[in-house]
Structures are given as C-alpha cells and as structure tokens.
C-alpha cells in the first residue's frame, strides 16, 4: 500500500492519471484525475464544489445529482474520466431567482437532499413536455427526502411551473 499522490487524501490511489476536458458549469475545465475517481469526489474534494452531496454511494438517494449533457445523473455512479468532452452542471451553477419558489414552498428543511432535488427539478422545469407522459412524483422519485414528505417539493415545482406559465418569476 502506497502513500496517496494528493494531499486532499480522499482519492483512490492506484493507476495512472487521465487528463480530460469538460464544460463544467459553463466553464471549459481541464482535469487530471485518477481513473477510479468518482465525479462526486472530484467535485467535492478536488474542486471544492461541495453543494453536491453523498447520501448513499449507491444511486438510490439522488443527493449527488448533477446534470450530464442536460440529463440528471447520480455523480456517485460516474467516474470523472467518463465526462470527458461532455457538459456537467452542478447546483453551484443555478440562478437564485429560479430557486425562490422552492424556498417559499417548503421544498427544503434540513437541506441535505436539496441540491439534488433542485437539480432534478431544474431539469424538469426546462423539459416540461415530460409532463405529458410523466407525473412530477415519478420524475422526482430518484431524490429521496426524509424531511418534507415531498409535498413541499412537489408543490414548489407546481408553483414554479405555474409561475413560468404566467410569465412571472415570483
């Protein structure tokens, strides 16, 4: 067993590193990572983007949700090298104004699920045609929340959809 190659110390230790480029939160970013490093860990420990959380490391809770080429994915199940030449958006990229309905609607309590919830919700709001085939509760089922009972989340999304329809952002 050897000593790790980085001071952050959270990272896997075997293999050679891989250099990649990706569009991270709108910024062209170059990264050099261990092949076994998860996107979640690169974001959190490598880049200090700690908004993305780990709740389970098994794809169940959605606290680690980011958008990959515009689709919500669990960053605990993506290796960083897999996002080479692709587009990644994390909670840090979101516009505060867009989030106002979530605050008012009781979508967050402890906040641990929240970054993931708002990422999936943002995607849903940007792809409202999904609602012709899917229900909000089905689309949000990959984001576990233990605090709200989901009503606050679902209603906030409904509210945001409605606000959009009326053309206001309140």
């Amino acid at each position, binding site marked *: 067993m050897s000593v790790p190659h980085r001071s952050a110390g959270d990272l896997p230790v075997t293999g050679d590193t891989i250099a990649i480029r990706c569009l991270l939160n709108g910024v062209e970013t170059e990264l050099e990572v261990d092949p076994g490093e998860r996107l979640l860990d690169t974001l959190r420990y490598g880049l200090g983007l700690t*908004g993305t959380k780990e709740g*389970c490391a098994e794809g169940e809770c959605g606290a680690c949700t980011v958008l990959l080429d515009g689709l919500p994915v669990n960053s605990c199940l993506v290796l960083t090298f897999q996002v080479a030449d692709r587009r990644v958006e994390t909670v840090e990229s979101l516009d505060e104004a867009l989030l106002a309905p979530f605050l008012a609607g009781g979508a*967050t309590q*402890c906040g641990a699920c929240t970054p993931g919830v708002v990422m999936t919700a943002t995607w849903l709001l940007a792809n409202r045609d999904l609602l012709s085939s899917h229900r909000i509760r089905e689309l949000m089922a990959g984001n576990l929340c233990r605090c709200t009972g989901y009503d*606050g989340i679902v209603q906030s999304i409904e509210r945001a959809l409605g606000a959009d329809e009326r053309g206001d952002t309140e």
Partner: protein
Amino acid sequence: MAKLTGRELYVDDLPSADHLWGATVRSPSPRGRITAVEFDPSIDWSEFVIVTADDIPGRNAVFLMEYDQPALADGYVRHVHEPVVLLAHPSRDIVRRAAALVTVRVELEAPVLDFCAVPEAGGIQHGTDNVLKHILIEKGDIEAALAAAPIVVEGEYFTGSQEHVYLETQGMRAHVDGDVLVIQGSMQCPYYVVKALVPLLDRDEAGIRVIQTATGGGFGGKEEYPSMIAAHAALLSLKSGRPVKLIYDRWEDLAVTTKRHPSRVRHRTGVDSDGRLLAQDIEIVLDGGAYVTLSPVVLSRAVIHAGGPYACDAVRIDGRAMLTNSAPFGAFRGFGAPQAFFGLERHMDVVAARLAMDPAAFRRVNLIRDGQQTGTSQTISDGADRLEVLDTALAACRWGTRREQIRRHNESHPLAKRGLGLAVFHHGAGFTGNGEVMLQSVVHVAATPRGGVEVRAASVEMGQGTTTIFTQLAAERLGLDPDTVEVAQPDTHRVPDSGPSVASRTAMVVGYLVEQACDDLRRRLGLTDAARGDAVAEAIRTWYAAPGQEELVGEATYLQPSHVEWDEETYRGDAYGAFAWAAYVAEVEVDLKTYSTRVTDFVAVQEIGRVLNQTLATGQIQGGVAQGIGWALLEDFSWRDGAMQNCQLTNYIIPTSDDLPPIRVEFLETPYSHGAQGAKGIGELPMDGPGPAIANAVAHALGVPAVAIPLTPERLMAEHDGLAAREAS
C-alpha cells in the same frame, strides 16, 4: 437560500486539506471476550494513527445517563459492530482498506436476542434480570375494575425498529486549537457532546469546544450517537495532533447508529356496552439493546402516553426496557410514544369491533374532556376542544360517507380492497415531569452594535426551522426588523446551554425563553415592556455609542410553570406542561394480487396551541407522517446476531415521492400560556398517528389482524391466507 444553492456547509464540506481520515474497527460478534486484535502484517502500520481503549485519558464511557457504554471496547463486547480500534490516515481510501485488515477475535458467548423472552441465567448482563428500566403507573383498582367490567378485550401488538435515514450521514471533525479541543459536526445536542467528553478525556469544559455544523436531518438519531463519534474523532486528533474527520458512509451509519426501539404492547381493556372505558391494563416491553443509553426516558414517554387521550378510572401501565445484545436502540422522533400508540389505537379499533361500534364513535365517548384526568392522574384543563379535533378529521375525510362507499366498493372488487382507519392521540411537549427543571435551560439575547440582536442558544437547526422561529420570535417580541436579528451558530464557547434539541421542546420551551430574554434585554436597556421597534434599536445604538461599553446581554432561565406537579417515584401528576392533540385518518388500497398497500389519502388534524409559521409547521407534520407511513408499511429489517443486515438504501426501503399521497394538514389553535406565542411542540407528534391509522385501515379493508408493523406484503399475505384458512375451516 444557502441550502438551495449548495452553499450551506455540512461537516464533510469543511475544507479538508491537511487532515486525517478516521475509520473504526468493530466487533464481529454479539457478545464475548476479545481474545486478540490482529493487524495484517502485509501493511506498514506506522503510517497510521492507531487508538485503542488504552489511549483513553479519562473514564472509558460515553456518558449520557450512565457510565456503562465504553467508547472503545476494552476486552469485552456486547454487540456486533461495537467499536474496538480507531485508525487514521491522510488517505480516506487507504484507511478504509486498512480497517478491513484489522481482525478482532472474540470468544463468543450466547447472546440475548429476544427482548420478549425471559433471559436464561447465563444471559444476564444487567442487574439480576436484564431489565434496564421498569416503570409502573397505577390509578384506581385495576383488578377490581376488570373483574367488574361486562366486556374485557385483550390484544397483543408489535412494532419493528426504524432507521432515521437522515439524508446527511453522521460525521465529526476534531482538531486541537491551543489548549482547546474543537469538535465540529452534525448533531442535535452540542452540550451532550461536552458532557460526554469531559469525563472521557479528563478535560474541563473550557478545554472542549463543540460547534454544530449544518445538520442534514436528525429525528433523534443525532441526539446521543454523535457523542460516540465525537469521542472517536477527538481521541484520534489528540493522539495525532492533526485535524481528523470521521464521516460515516451510509452502510456504517445504518449498521451502527441507534434506531427506534422495537416493542411489544399488550392490552386488557374493560368496557361497558355503551363503549365506556372501565379499565386499561397495559404492558409495554421495549428492546433496549446492549447499553442503557436513553432507553429509560424512551420507556417513560411510552408508558405515559400508553393510555391515550382517554378518560379511564382504572389504569395500570407496566413498562420495561430490556437489555439485548443488539446495538443500543435510541432516540427517534416520538420517543416511545409511537410504539405505545400503535398498540393502543389499533386495540381501540379491536375493542370497537367487539362492541360493534363505529371506531370514531367509540373514541368520542372516551376522549378526555376538560377537567378529566389522564393515566398519570394529570388533570387536563387547557381549553382545547378534543372533540373538535376529531370532528375536523372526520369531516375532512367524510368518514361516514366514505366508510359506506368503501363497503360498496369492496363488495364489487375482489382484488382491490380499500379501508379507512383512524387514530386519535396526544403528545406531551418538552421534557417529562421535572425534566425541564433539571435541565435549567438558559438563553441569551445579545444586543448588536448596529441596533439589532443576536439570539444565543444551543438549540440546533436541523431542518425543523429553529433559525426562522427564533428570528421571528425575537423580532416580533422587540418589534425589530427580522433582518437585524441573528441566530448564533450553536457553539458551546459562545452560547449558553438551552438544552438538547429534542422532545418537541425547541419552539415551545426554548422559544419562550427567547421571548423572556428579549424582555430582560429591554429591561437592561432601561425600557418598559411596551418599548418596541425603533425605540429598542435606538436604545441599543445609544448603549454602544458610549466608548468601551460592554456587550449587553439579556438572559432567561427556565422556570417550571406553577401548575406543573410531578412525582417521579409514583409516576403520578403532570407529566407534561402541555399536550398537543391530534386525529389522523388514513385511506388505503390493498392490491390482493400482490398484497401491497398504498396509502391513497391522509388527513392530519392537530391542535398545537398556536401555529408559529404555517409553512414550517405543515412541513413538520407532512415529514413526520411520511416517516410514519414508512414505519407502518415499508421499513423492514433483516437481523442477524442483533445486527442489521440490510444496510443499504436499496434494501432498507423508505418512501419516495411516488409512494406517498399528498398529506392533508389542518391545525386548530388554543394558545398555551407558557409556550412561545402560545405554541406547543409539534416535532414528534406526527410520528404517533400513521402507524395505527394505517393498520386500522388495512384491517378495515381486509379483516386481517394487522397487529404488527411493518405491514409488508409478505406479512399481509400470511395474515390474509391465515384468515382465509380459518374461514374455510
């Protein structure tokens, strides 16, 4: 907003350069003597910080109620996963791999795993009978009342354990700053951590500073266990001289932290043919796990609530918490009351059925009216209209009409059965009996130079809205703009001990102290109680205008309301200063192809004194109901040797958004004079009702016993087939 944008910092979000990662090596066995701890020779262990029980400077116990639970096992283990050795290393990956390469060998002794069975002689590990705590409540002559009752109905009910599954797993960071050990982490009770570390580390309070970081949910799960993790992080940090992060992953969190006490509740109930309760003979047994921890207090709340919100002259409630070789069970939202209410409220339906009475009508006859007494002989006279609570819930679900519609539906649908179930209950807010007096909670409200105030309390925000509520209470009390009110981060070197953030006490008890500390500040400013707004802000600015002026702090200390009298010996008297009252109705549909149950409607009506913030209060109720629905239907355990086997979110099943119906919440308000703005606590209340309401609904749908939860499809299939077999024979 910081939570929505991801800027809020939880413990694992704290900058991580230059620190070590901790890991815990645990017992593989439920009980026995440790014969060896073997370190795999293929590894250079000099790279690691290694801590064992020998490194503990003080007394090897994580103190809360008793000194019985070691921080690190010293030669003997009492449950699987008991911590034995701690490791730290700069690489999280390496320390995880290394932990798997330390082997703890245990000479196995027969574990006690059944909390309902009388332990064999060789199994005794606490006192003479493994009883961690016994409580007896008696009112009237129970045997005589039972003998005289025209109808006596017996029942036996079981509840399973439950994991909190706060979305942020537990974790602590420790570092040494000069002479002070600093602990930062996810927790509900910063001063509990201090109290546990003082004897363990043989340091005084000045040498230990505990700071709560943003806490991603608690529900009771971060009440006692954080002291254990803090102790471990502290020991590693003190030995290495480096900052140490000890963050549990989900597997470890599920496997080792406390859970809800499993229970068995038995009822023998005497009634007359009008449905009047004549006798309630109740026995409660809780699985306490391997150490005392908080089991006595959980049991206390269970027995006090066991008789329910009903008037009955002859009551006996006998409660025991039993030692087993499971990881200790601990605090969880509801704190014993959900177990008691599952037994009681399921049983109330069973009794109603025997009487051929409508379940709601049966409860109506017995609901406590002002002037009547609870099981502990506490006279209720709070002016709250309990009948109105019941009637509001019945109206919201159109009880009578709906039961009739359901009857007709079920006649024509052999494979999809519906049911409507009710639970009526109450929940005492704050610590039991004289508990609040013992706590002697203190709150400070400090004036800030720009003309505002800072509220200083150790009560934590963990999603339930403490910060919002304290801000609102102080702002409204002093007439200040909420933007000028700050709430201090709980930091034991900055805030006074306002007690733990548990027992639904924060808004009611601590909030009330916030108001009084505001009043005290106003007095110190030389203002009358009528002074508000600009007058207060101006007086504050004037105070600080004087050169070298000291910080001005208003203070309030808890005083027991004069109406509360409690006898800890006989368990008689005013168990709580105030109760919240509630009636919940669940409608379910059971698919008889798959035996799975879906909650299709849920109504939650409660009287809570005063609603301080509609969004927060509604969210508390909905979240609690969701947890209750999970407990009732989904959250099942696979145990081996007293340890949880299904330690993943893929097989410990909590509800998703798609599993729950919208939860309809209504509040009734009758202000309580000793609560902040008239509020009573609500944090735990919503956990009490869903279990029995859902079981009653399932029983209504299928006619099955539904005496044990979770009502998993596998269990329902067995009950349903059993019923069919009985009907056939």
